[in-house]
């Protein structure tokens, strides 16, 4: 039986699009964010409050994979909350990973627009004045934080780390920059401990049908149709417009002012370089 796989990455990086495209393979399925997704456990794990996740992962994710495996079919799923469980998943399932990355500046912009236009639950503690669409207000009014695992899952600075003491004075922009940098760091730390050939990276913004041909080959998937792949890429799956919402008003990073560039670069600059995103452009902006 072929190895199962997981699509992973920071939220708003294109993981849903990658999952949807891979799901079109004739010999596989890719489930989008099935539950349980270990959202609360993910935060606990990152904060050192969950030390041995094997039993948890075995009884939840591994059990689900086993249940869904079928002869001749490759099982895949996408969840953005698996960052601290990558090694455990690999140990228990000998699985593969598709790590989806995206320029942090685009992710932060997308997160803020997603918050203001759609769900209003991204870093709920941010100090910014609230600007919500009617849709976002309707959604958040029915979602007190005790029912909201998704925001809880996002990392917060631990005591002793640089942003811990000033966290509640930070804007959502700064918190989202922290999220992108931190969660990608956790993914990379975990992935880099896996055997060579266990994972590949996909950058959706630069992806084309060839990208997915290679990904499919890596995963053992077949019959991905180039025309359909390109069509799905153009569709911008799970964007605000794809979800029928207003596109949002937060600026493209090229239009950010000096404060935004400076704060982003301070918080996320090292991860930008680590992931191979235009340090040249960053430096130009700084200059």
């Amino acid at each position, binding site marked *: 039986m072929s190895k199962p796989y997981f699509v992973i990455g920071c939220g708003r990086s294109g993981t849903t699009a990658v999952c949807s495209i891979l799901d079109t393979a004739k010999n596989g399925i890719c489930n989008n964010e099935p539950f349980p997704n270990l959202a609360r456990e993910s935060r606990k794990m990152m904060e050192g409050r969950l030390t041995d996740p094997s039993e948890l992962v075995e009884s939840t994710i591994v059990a689900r994979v086993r249940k869904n495996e079928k002869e001749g079919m490759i099982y895949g799923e996408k969840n953005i909350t698996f960052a601290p469980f990558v090694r455990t998943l690999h140990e228990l399932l000998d699985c593969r990973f598709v790590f989806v990355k995206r320029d942090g500046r685009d992710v932060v912009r997308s997160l803020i627009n997603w918050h203001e236009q759609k769900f*209003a639950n991204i870093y709920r*503690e941010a100090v910014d004045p*609230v600007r919500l669409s009617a849709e976002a207000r309707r959604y*958040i009014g029915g979602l*007190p*934080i*005790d029912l909201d695992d998704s*925001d809880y899952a996002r990392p917060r600075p631990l005591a002793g780390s640089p942003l811990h003491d000033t966290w*509640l004075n930070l804007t959502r922009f700064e918190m989202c920059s922290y999220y992108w940098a931190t969660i990608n760091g956790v993914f990379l730390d975990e992935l880099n401990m896996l055997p060579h050939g266990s994972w590949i990276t996909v950058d959706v913004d630069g992806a084309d049908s060839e990208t997915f041909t290679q990904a499919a080959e890596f995963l053992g998937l077949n019959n991905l149709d180039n025309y359909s792949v390109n069509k799905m890429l153009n569709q911008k799956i799970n964007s605000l417009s794809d979800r029928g919402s207003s596109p949002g008003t937060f600026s493209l990073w090229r239009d950010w002012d000096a404060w935004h560039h400076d704060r982003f670069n301070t918080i996320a600059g090292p991860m930008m370089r680590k992931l191979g995103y235009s340090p040249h452009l960053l430096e130009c902006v700084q200059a």
Partner: protein
Amino acid sequence: MKFPSFIKKRGAPSFRFEELPSADLWDPTTHIDTANEIFGPFSNSLTYYDNVLSQIQSINELSITPLYRLFDETNEQVRRIALRHDVDFDPYAALRCARLLARYGTCGSFYLLHTNPYYGRVVNETFVRNPYLAEFVDGLMVAGAEIGLHNDALNIFQNWNRDGNGALTQEIAWLRGRGVTIHGTVAHNSGPVYGAENYEIFQGYRLWERELKTSTGQVIPLGSLNGEELGLTYEGTFARPKHDPNTDLAGAFFSDKVASDVRSKSWMRKFLLDSPACDYMTDTQFWLVGVDSWIVAGQRAGGDIYEHFISFSKVLEIIQDLPTGSRSIMVIHPEYVRN
């Protein structure tokens, strides 16, 4: 929703309600300066509240829930504690508390006092909501708080000579129109202030038969408002009328305004534990009343417990010993949690 018709016929007249902002209605700076002046000597830092939260979150087998879930029937064996925030005066302090809770993914319950100027005020026979109010409400929603009203209907009946039931009903509708999901209210003030508890406006909550009047002699319709029809599932003091109240003692307690003082040990004990008119559904109440200063009242296996002006370290010991299946509340006035 239905509204008892006799109130409109016989009771106090209703307000007109105005939603348009009036820029000169409220000065946040002056309001906060006043809050600092009044509450400053009794206030704790946000770091103090942060420490309180982290300590109770670290207690094993203690679930922190919003008030609307305190008496959920699932997992009855779990010890539950709810964080009730009565926002008497300072919405900014309330927002800071809510955001602190959001950092931990903890849901606190916040009750907005609809008679305080931060919420609104009467201008030329019209109740005008504060232009900043919508921002406070949105801020609390985004922070993930449960939001309710700090019911002060009797104040409106008695001191504003208007229909308090109608005002409360109207504000519930307005908040729901903003997207807020409201499950409950919490009575503001205490019985001696108005001669009755604010929760007594609700059906089934009148503590004993008596006539309460406005300053102009109109009868206040205690026990008339149907909470269920308003879509409410709880009253967050969790008081319930005694089956056989001592009306003489209750009358004396409710008519003695001079004695009613949150800092009086004997009065608070009577208010929270030895009331002649009501019992509480909660097992224990923990009230923050000053600088690292708490009042604890309730029941334990060995009988009643009442502690006056104790530190949080002692409160923590009591919380750690809460019995299986217990339901408790911490009552926080955000005014006591300042910068």
